[in-house]
């Protein structure tokens, strides 16, 4: 598909590697306008009236799916959710046919969450509608990366030169890969730490500094991104016990004190309290976790707006 590069109109949003810094900028500035709409009494504008968006989710999701759904609805689009557990997928329909089927219903965008890396790229090759990757396996989750960037900037921080610490399960994390790609592109100094069994082999090739102790990554950090630990990783033997994980690798108040006083703590959610993040840290003033959720809607409004309209930045939307 030949899609123009001058704007985001008609563009598939598959990962943050393939967007430029200028494009990040356009999305974040548009999101700021969108956030104003969210704060109105009547949070609805007709910008995407007559557009239809399909949320095609092959994995369970609460915040991402709801957030995309509300984003579309606030902009006046019709949004339909397909969860594959109750669709033809259980009858054995292949991804190509599912995509072509929803395309035939004249949808304008497909927001897709899928457990396999590259599924969004595959969908983009098959389909004409805009594909927005809402997470493909351990590869990418671009709207999460953008909302994290938005949240960091909202805290008055410019990414360039900042020390960013990513803690935990990088191996299976699309959020980690997305943020590493975006943050290194923005000139931040990215550090990762966690059990070596949960860090990809050759992770240094991504341009990050690896630490075996989380304390070294946290020391002087401006931003800490705590990744969710899935409990099945422990069942697969990748670390001995939740207890040891929390004790050695979890973010608690004592470790948080090693960071800059104004450190921003991010977590893509849902949190495992007492495992990768302590109760206290999750609710402390430095935690921007609920801001992330709110900003998620604004960023997704911006993505839908920019890809489904001319793709030009807006100053004031009415």
């Amino acid at each position, binding site marked *: 598909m030949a899609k123009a590069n001058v704007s985001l109109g008609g563009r598939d949003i598959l990962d943050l590697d393939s967007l430029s810094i200028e494009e990040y900028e356009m999305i974040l500035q548009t999101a700021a306008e969108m956030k104003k709409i969210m704060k109105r009494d009547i949070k609805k504008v007709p910008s995407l009236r007559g557009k239809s968006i399909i949320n095609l989710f092959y994995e369970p999701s609460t915040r991402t799916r709801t957030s995309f759904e509300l984003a579309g609805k606030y902009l006046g689009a019709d949004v339909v959710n397909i969860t594959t557990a109750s669709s033809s997928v259980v009858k054995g329909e*292949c991804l190509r046919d599912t995509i072509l089927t929803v395309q035939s219903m004249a949808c304008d965008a497909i927001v897709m969450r899928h457990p396999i890396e590259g599924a969004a790229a595959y969908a983009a090759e098959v389909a004409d509608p805009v594909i927005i990757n809402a997470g493909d396996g351990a590869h990418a989750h671009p709207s999460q990366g953008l909302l994290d960037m938005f949240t960091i900037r909202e805290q008055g921080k410019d990414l360039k030169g900042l020390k960013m610490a990513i803690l935990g399960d990088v191996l299976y994390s699309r959020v980690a890969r997305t943020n590493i790609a975006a943050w290194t592109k923005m000139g931040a100094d990215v550090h990762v730490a966690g059990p070596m069994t949960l860090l990809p*082999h*050759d992770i240094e090739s991504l341009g990050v500094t690896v630490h075996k102790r989380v304390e070294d990554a946290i020391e002087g950090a401006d931003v800490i991104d705590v990744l969710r630990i899935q409990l099945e990783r422990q069942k697969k033997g990748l670390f001995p016990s939740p207890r040891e994980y929390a004790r050695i690798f979890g973010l608690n108040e004592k470790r948080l004190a090693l960071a800059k006083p104004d450190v921003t703590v991010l977590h893509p959610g849902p949190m495992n309290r007492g495992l990768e993040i302590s109760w206290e840290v999750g609710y402390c003033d430095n935690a921007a976790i609920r801001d992330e959720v709110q900003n998620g809607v604004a960023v997704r409004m911006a993505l839908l707006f920019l890809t489904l309209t001319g793709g030009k930045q807006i100053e004031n939307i009415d």
Partner: protein
Amino acid sequence: MKTLIKNGRVIDPSQNIDAIMDLLVEDGVIKEVAAEIKAAADEVYDADGLIVAPGLVDVHTHLREPGLEAKEDIVTGTMAAAAGGVTTIACMPNTKPVIDNSIIVSGIKERAAREGYVNVEVIGAISKGEEGKELAEMIDMSEKGAMAFSDDGHFVNSPRLFTLAAKYIGAFDKVLISHAIEPELGHEGYMHEGAVSARIGVPGIPAIAEDIAVARDCLIAEYTGAHVHIAHVASKGAVDIIRGFKKKGVNVTCEVTVHHLTLTDEACATYSSATRVSPPLRSMDHVEALRAAVKDGTVDAIVTDHAPHAPEEKDVEFRYAPCGFTGLETSVGVVLTDLYHTNIFTINEIIGKMSTEPANIFALKAGSLKVGYPADVTIIDLNKEWTVDNTKFYTRGKVTPFQGKHCKGKAVATMVAGKFVMRDGEVCKR
């Protein structure tokens, strides 16, 4: 019936020939190779400017018959071989049912003789059903013409069973072919573990999964004295291990595929299911080690591991795709383009590894233009330019990572037992 192939550059590593010569074929066998042959013939083939080589021998292919004919069958698979310049192929036993008894071996050989376009050798299973539990009836299969034995597609996970197999069939001078990948280390992996997998998020398989398995099977070869042939070697660690055992005089041979010599894991970065294969495409340091191992003789054969799949099986998400892709119709073009015209291998090395040496490993009467040998001949135009177009393939498996590749060099005629089975890319009617 006499055919005279005139003025070609005859390259026959089995006789150390590399010269402009004529080749006379009569009644299906090589009659004479000489500087100038003046005998009358039914057909004179002008090979001026072309390479005349012993027919290519590909000891690692999948014909998918019986049971998996949606992927390939003996007719389409042997047509693909003929089209690609390959005169003898050996087919792997991971069919449905598995080729694990003599009646299936006989059945394939008979059907191939009746309907096939090239010579077909059959590789029987080491274990019943390739389940890795009990030995299959390998001696019985040998007596019905099985060339070698393998549980290809699976590593024989039990060291005891592989040792027993080596003792049992080694006594009958048959070769065991090892699909040497330790399954547990990579059981959740879908591509080579390295910088690319770290970046694109696809779970990786560490190269040591291959190295460990290769080391084990080399040790078993040493212990039992049986001949073990390592299939599709793809890691630098594995070739180092094999080199060491060969130096000690252990009866180990190995093969490398065309794709492992020419592609890296960067090809997986688009998540194309055409790049999913086992062993996985590896990084450039591995590719360079494989090329060096071909040069120094550690690697004995270049194969395709032609593994066709039905389109609907490959047209899926990366992880869901079965491993493997088609290779018989692209091997000569890709090898000449990426390894000959780039001065990595000489044409003599290529013909040695794609014909003479694999024939020798399995004691096949092939891979040579000696007088009295079957007249299996591949005629190659080193400079013919063409583009890989899977819509023109004879194989049923259309998926290839080389689709659209611009190639220089192609087999332009294939002769099996004195008869042309392919001319100018077109398979001849039987």
